[in-house]
């Protein structure tokens, strides 16, 4: 569905990441599921797929990473109007698991916050491994949206070795999993395709269920244009995803 919307909050979180709060100017919008996403329309500039980082009372939070012209325009939009389409995707409700390890790369952390809020309501625990390239991309996940539970463990990795573990998120995740056998029964990886591929192969022999939050070209969000198809699989990110089990999209992960 298309909704007019207004930016109600804007915050620089780190060198490359920004938080935007968006009020939907329409009544009766249904609460999204974790991992559902929206398309943010900056008039005359671009339409950007964004994970829901939080939602309450018709207000959505998103985390925007500065990359191209479109994201820069959205970041610059401090109090103006924009369009929001959504919420799209099947979402993911992993409530049959006991303890989830969320492995995020860069801005792939965005859906963690909303998952954490919902998981807490459902009595499921979520821990976080967050990897970034440079330490200047980091912010404190605990203080961001107040969705992170006290019992949540947070592990940080930087590739420039300026903070936390020195190396990639997948490596750190592999280490903490081996140090804590039996602690997690579900892994969800979210971020660049390289990270997803590494998580799926590195952790394949742990016996833990492995899911990934995929990214690809999304032009419509409703399952019509076909741009988001995860070739060679007959699966649409915007309709069947964006979260898939590793083994269901092996061909796609290899291809990217």
């Amino acid at each position, binding site marked *: *569905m*298309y909704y*007019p*919307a*207004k930016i109600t909050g804007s915050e620089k979180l780190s060198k490359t990441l920004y938080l935007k709060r968006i009020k939907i*100017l329409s009544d009766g919008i249904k609460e999204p599921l974790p991992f559902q996403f929206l*398309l943010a*329309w900056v*008039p*005359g500039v*671009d*339409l950007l797929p964004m994970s829901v980082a939080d939602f309450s009372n018709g207000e959505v939070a998103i985390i925007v990473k500065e990359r191209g012209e479109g994201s820069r325009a959205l970041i610059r939009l401090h109090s*103006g*109007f*924009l*369009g929001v*389409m959504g919420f799209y995707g099947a979402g993911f409700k992993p409530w049959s698991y006991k303890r989830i390890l969320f492995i995020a790369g860069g801005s792939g952390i965005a859906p963690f916050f909303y998952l954490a809020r919902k998981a807490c309501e459902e009595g499921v625990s979520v821990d976080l491994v967050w990897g970034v390239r440079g330490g200047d991309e980091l912010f404190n996940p605990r203080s961001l949206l107040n969705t992170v539970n006290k019992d949540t463990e947070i592990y940080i990795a930087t590739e420039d070795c300026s903070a936390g573990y020195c190396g990639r998120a997948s490596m750190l995740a592999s280490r903490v999993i081996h140090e804590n056998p039996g602690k997690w029964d579900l892994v969800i990886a979210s971020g660049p395709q390289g990270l997803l591929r590494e998580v799926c192969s590195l952790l394949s022999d742990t016996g833990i269920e492995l899911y990934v939050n995929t990214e690809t070209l999304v*032009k*419509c*969000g*409703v*399952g*019509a*244009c*076909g*741009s988001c*198809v995860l*070739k*060679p*699989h*007959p*699966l*649409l990110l915007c309709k069947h995803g964006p979260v898939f089990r590793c083994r269901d999209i092996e061909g796609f992960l290899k291809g990217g």
Partner: protein
Amino acid sequence: MLETSIAGLRLKHPVMNASGILGSEPEHLEILAKQGFSALVSKTITLNPREGYPPPIIVELRNNGLLNAVGLANPGARVIPVLARKARELSKPLILSIGGSSVEEFVKLAELASEAGVDAVELNLSCPHAEGYGLELGSDPMLVYRIVKDVVSVASLPVIAKLGLTDRVIESAGKALEAGVKALTLINTVKAMSIDVYTLKPVLSNKYGGLSGPPIHPIAVRVVYDVYREYRAEIIGVGGVSSWMDVAELMLAGARAVQVGTALIWNENIVDEILSGLHKWLIDLGYNSLMDLVGIAVM
């Protein structure tokens, strides 16, 4: 009970997908085949690849309609044999939708379709938002005649013309039949617009788009009725079908088959629901073949 035939194709039931909701890649055909359509229709394919318009290309409207200006994005003619192979693998008849900005482009595409062994071609003479590629063609009855005539002369497969809502749609339909099409697909989306009332701008990047879904269904019924009354032609009815009753209406107006587009977005079980509804309808009415009901509302 639900068998039908259209343009020489014998189909298990009358429900196909409408061109353009998926259908430009082999993976898309797999997704569509799972929904149970009796034949698959491709996205409109042009000779050269087309990027289409930048997003927004689709808007879900408050009135249950959908507005789109995709701009005929497709991978170009090289995908034709790939789609044909996939449809054979899926054991589904394939109707290849083709589009062009000249008579020559249509002819070339029809030749490629014949070579690839697809089951029929549907000429898109009705896209309301791709300049030079659609509605302008279909609203000029003489141009319709020329395109169809030339395509029919080279194509060794059944040719269907898809026409949209214009003031001269009945005339264009007549010319298409005269030039040798086996069937008509009626209608395409209806030219429309949506404006955001806070940013004060049209939402689609192309500003104009095509309206589809429930709001256009009564228009489709009217056009099918008028064309059937005039020519008793073979018609595929399309426009806003979201339940078996919508299909029933189009068939009573003269359609021997129907296509479903927009409703796929909101309902993955649409085909099964339509088929069981039609089945029950026939029993309620005491008929044993759907074909006996085609056009019987037309006087």
